[in-house]
């Protein structure tokens, strides 16, 4: 298939493509992807920003042909490294010669690798998922601040980082532990725990894992859906009046639970997407600073800059 160039020959634009899972059933699944794409559009960091989905359109198979750029930064909006980031997305993008070893990842350290897409000839800088970038720790903490409405949240509070967990992919849990460990080292929460829906330690027993009276619970999911709005609140024993209808804070036993909903809905996540592209060589000048300013009022660096 031939490339279709802008006829001026000035086709040296820099584009960002955000890949997300999407859903055939849940209309809210794509919402965070669109919201973060809009934040990045407003920052002016890229000439073109486009969303694409595994389950929705434009499909990953067809997105490159509708992005007018020879050079595209592709950032997966996924929580962990694994099946989607290592197999499905590279295959659907038709990345010639893709091999996961290019990332040299230990399960949480994928960075980026450059390939040509077979159908369009586009140069694709394929980045690791947003969820394993170091800046996700900041996003989790920002989520804790948002849900407690307390910019200094930490002392006196426990923090539970909740993942899906799956027997099929050990990296799924690795990403959760990775962020929990870093926040524990670098932030002043009383206690930080990694908990899971489908493996131990389980979120069902949340009050057994904390001594603090107040516990912020941040689920590492991209979008709000069945898991974050029904499963996890029910597992924890929060009183609910239906999907997404739970008190904040809610009381379980002697513990006040500040449940934040999906981390992916936090506006600051746009920053982590930009960081991924920047690490891969995208020239985005001061866009990261602008996005940080627009998505939160203050930024306390809790982790050393890479």
């Amino acid at each position: 298939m031939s490339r279709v160039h802008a006829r001026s020959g000035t086709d040296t634009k820099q584009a960002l493509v955000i890949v997300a899972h999407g859903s055939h059933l849940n209309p809210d699944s794509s919402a965070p992807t669109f919201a973060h794409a809009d934040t990045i559009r407003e920052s002016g960091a890229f000439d073109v920003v486009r969303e694409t989905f595994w389950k929705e359109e434009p499909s990953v198979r067809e997105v490159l042909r509708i992005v007018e750029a020879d050079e595209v930064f592709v950032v997966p909006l996924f929580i962990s490294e694994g099946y989607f980031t290592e197999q499905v997305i590279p295959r659907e993008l038709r990345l010639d010669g893709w091999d996961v070893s290019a990332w040299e990842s230990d399960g949480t350290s994928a960075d980026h690798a450059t390939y040509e897409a077979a159908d369009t000839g586009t140069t694709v800088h394929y980045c690791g998922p947003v969820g394993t970038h170091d800046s996700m720790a900041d996003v989790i903490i920002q989520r804790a601040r948002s849900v407690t409405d307390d910019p200094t949240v930490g002392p006196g509070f426990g923090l539970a980082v909740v993942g899906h967990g799956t027997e099929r992919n050990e990296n799924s849990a690795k990403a959760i532990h990775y962020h929990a460990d870093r926040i524990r080292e670098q932030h002043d929460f009383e206690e930080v725990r990694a908990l899971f829906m489908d493996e131990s330690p389980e979120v069902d027993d949340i009050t057994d894992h904390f001594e603090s009276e107040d516990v912020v619970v941040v689920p590492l999911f991209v979008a709000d859906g069945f898991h974050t709005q029904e499963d996890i609140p029910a597992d924890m024993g929060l009183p609910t009046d239906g999907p997404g209808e739970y008190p904040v804070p809610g009381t379980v036993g002697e513990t006040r639970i500040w449940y934040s909903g999906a981390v992916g809905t936090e506006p600051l996540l746009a920053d982590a997407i930009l960081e991924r592209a920047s690490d891969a060589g995208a020239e985005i000048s001061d866009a990261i600073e602008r996005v940080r300013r627009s998505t939160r009022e203050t930024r306390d660096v809790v982790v050393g800059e890479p």
Partner: protein
Amino acid sequence: MTVSRSHIAALRDAADTGVSFDGLSVTVDDGTYTFAIPDERHTGLDAAELADVATANNAYVTNWYHWTRIDRTDSEQTYLRWLEHADGLAVPQRYDALSEGGLTRLWGELSITTTLDRDEAQRRYSIRHENDTNTDRAELAVYDDPLDAREIAKHDDDGHYRPLKTAPTLRTGWLFADLSGHELLRTIDFLYPATVHNWYLERHGELDVSHWRETAQRQTGIYDLIEELGGDQLEWLTEACCVDSQCLKRRQWDESDDEPLDTPRGDGVFPCREPCSLVIAVARKLTLLEREQPREYTFELTPSEKEQLETLIDAVAEGRTEEIREADTDDGANRYRARYLRAKRFDEHGRLSGVPTSEDDTEN
């Protein structure tokens, strides 16, 4: 309508290498210009005379400028010119039509109208649902940002989520009233993603179709098993998902390059180049169901009850259950009729005629 000086200057410069576009021809030889349009030819013009002739034939000049001096991709250019019938209408007729209400094309359920702006130099585009063609503008929600199309595309008029963007269920009641060509393309791209580009590739004989076999072979994980489907099952699958009543794309893929499917491809203007994610997801479910072996069951039904079962399946398949009137007891899919049949013929476990579904179904 006036031709701007910049247009005339651009035309004069372009004459050096020769202008030939949509019936307009301008050349220069030894410092004198020749300006020709169909049925009219002016030779030996100096620069001032060229400007006069260009002004007198401004439609040809602004048309040339619009289509050759504005940066667009080839697919954008081809599509926007198709919208205004550039291949079929000469410039004067086209300009008349664009000035008097515009030229309209249908794209799926979209009605797209091209008009000229006040200076008659630039095209402007409006886009609405074809069912809103005669709706008063005051009754439509007017948008100007292509990004808003994402929300329009998400739910149908009944508020149901649309997992397939090209399903013929696009919401009505909205209007993008005044878009540039580029904004129009972005709007369409959110309503019917990639359709313009694939249409363009098809027109140029470059559409990269992925047939069922290679698409199925590519799948991994939970979709790996869809390779089991073939032959008649693919006919039934495409009849279920891919006909015009379900999707506006025209199916260009088959079982393989030399194994066509008989299911009608559809009359859509834009092509479908490979089985979409929804078809793959449906196929997975059907693959699992098709692993079952048929069994013989014995039911007792009256002739009308047999027909009623056929009507019920047909009503669901055609999506007409919402239309059946509350008291229309002549319709076998009427709710009271269905509830009566259930009360009469199902046992307390919901089994038809009390017949066990499988041998290990021991509910008594």
